[in-house]
Every structure is written in C-alpha cells, then in structure tokens.
C-alpha cells in the first residue's frame, strides 16, 4: 500500500498505465527476460503480460506452454519500454514536481 502515499511511486504506476497494450521486455531478478504485451499493472507494479516470449527459449523451455503471465513487481529488475510511447519531457517535469524538496 506504500505506493499510494508515495508521489513518485504513483507516477511510475501512471507511466505504466499509459503503456498498456504496448510491447515491453521485462528482465527478472532470476535473469529471465520476457517480452510481451502489457495488459495491466497495479500499485505494487505487478505486471500482466500477454503473448509472451522468453528470451533464449532453447535454454528456458520451462514456459513453453505459457501464453500470458502475472509477474510480481518485487522481482522485476528492468522493464524495457517502447521509447516512442514515453513522453520523457513530461516525465521529467512530473518527477521534479513530485520530488520532495
């Protein structure tokens, strides 16, 4: 629930919400990388991905039969975003406004 009270936490949450239905790549803290269509995100930055594909599938056949998944926000290391869909100028301004002085 902490994110609700943290201005930057909810900012990133909002950014993710604007990226629904875009293709993203999520790198997990167990070194798995998964590409898929972002279907939803919640205040913990848990992520739902559709039409997923695991990078280096030959090495990681574990998820062959998985077409969509829920990823726990706490185990995400990076999310690669489609840069054309992120307004970095807007994000910078919002970050400055939201940052504690």
């Amino acid at each position, binding site marked *: *629930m902490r994110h*609700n*009270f943290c201005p930057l936490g*909810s900012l990133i949450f909002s950014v993710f919400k604007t990226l629904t239905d875009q293709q993203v790549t999520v790198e997990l803290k167990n070194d798995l990388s998964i590409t898929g269509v972002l279907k939803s995100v919640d*205040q913990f930055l848990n992520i739902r991905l559709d039409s997923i594909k695991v990078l280096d599938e030959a090495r990681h056949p574990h998820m062959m039969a998985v077409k969509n998944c829920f990823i726990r926000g706490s185990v995400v290391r990076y999310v690669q975003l489609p840069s054309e869909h992120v307004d970095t100028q807007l994000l910078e301004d919002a970050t400055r406004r939201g940052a504690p002085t």
Partner: protein
Amino acid sequence: MKPLGSVRLGWLCCLLFALDTMLPLSLLNAAQNKPMLVELKNGETFNGHLVNCDNFMNITLREVYQTNSEGDRFWKLKECYIRGSTIKYLRVPDALLDAVKEEQNRARDAGRGARGSFVSGGGNRGRGAISRGSRLPSLFCV
C-alpha cells in the same frame, strides 16, 4: 491518488475477492488440527498438526518433526511457533479444498437469505459478498 480513495479501493478489492475466490487464509483457518508440512524460506521444514494461526500466517504446530535444509538432521518438538513472514509454503491435506468450498457456499446461501437487501444496496452486483462480512475486517491487517 488520495489516501482516502485508496482505502476505499482496498475495501472494494476485498469485497471482490470475497465474491468467488478461495482466500488462502480461509484454507489455513480450516486446517486447524489437521496435519501439514511447512517449509521456511531458509529451507527448513516442519511437519506437524496446526494448533492455531492468525492473519499474518503466524502459526503454532504440535507434535512437530523439524528437518534441516539439507534434509539430513531431524528434531522432534512438542510444540512450536513459526512467524508467518519466514514461511515459503504450506502443504495441507487435499480434502480441505472441498471442505472450505462447501463452507463458503453454505455461508453465502445463509447470507443471501438473511441480508439479501443489504447486499444488493452495496453496489457489488448483489452476489452475496457481505454474507462473509464477518471475515472481511481480518483482511486489513496488511
């Protein structure tokens, strides 16, 4: 997002959960006096009968066999307390699933009869969430 709004959202989420999902804590509550296996995050396992549990998943077991993470050393404990946050998973008897589902159906039917008008006024599609209202406050000990 305003704090007040998110508290309301939390309530709404809980109501929705209560509609048709079996809550892990309901299963655990139903497991009292039943045998279970608990593995901790450090790999130690505890086999025993559940005496009691709370909403943090803190539990007490009786007649416990403790095994170290390598699985080569054993201890017998008369009773033990396990802090919920150290638990990785619990294995419980298969029969509990049907027992909990039946109990939920009974509670829902009873609630529908007794407080149906209140339920439909609650804006939750009138599917009897309030029938389990006595359990809802327990969800807030996050």
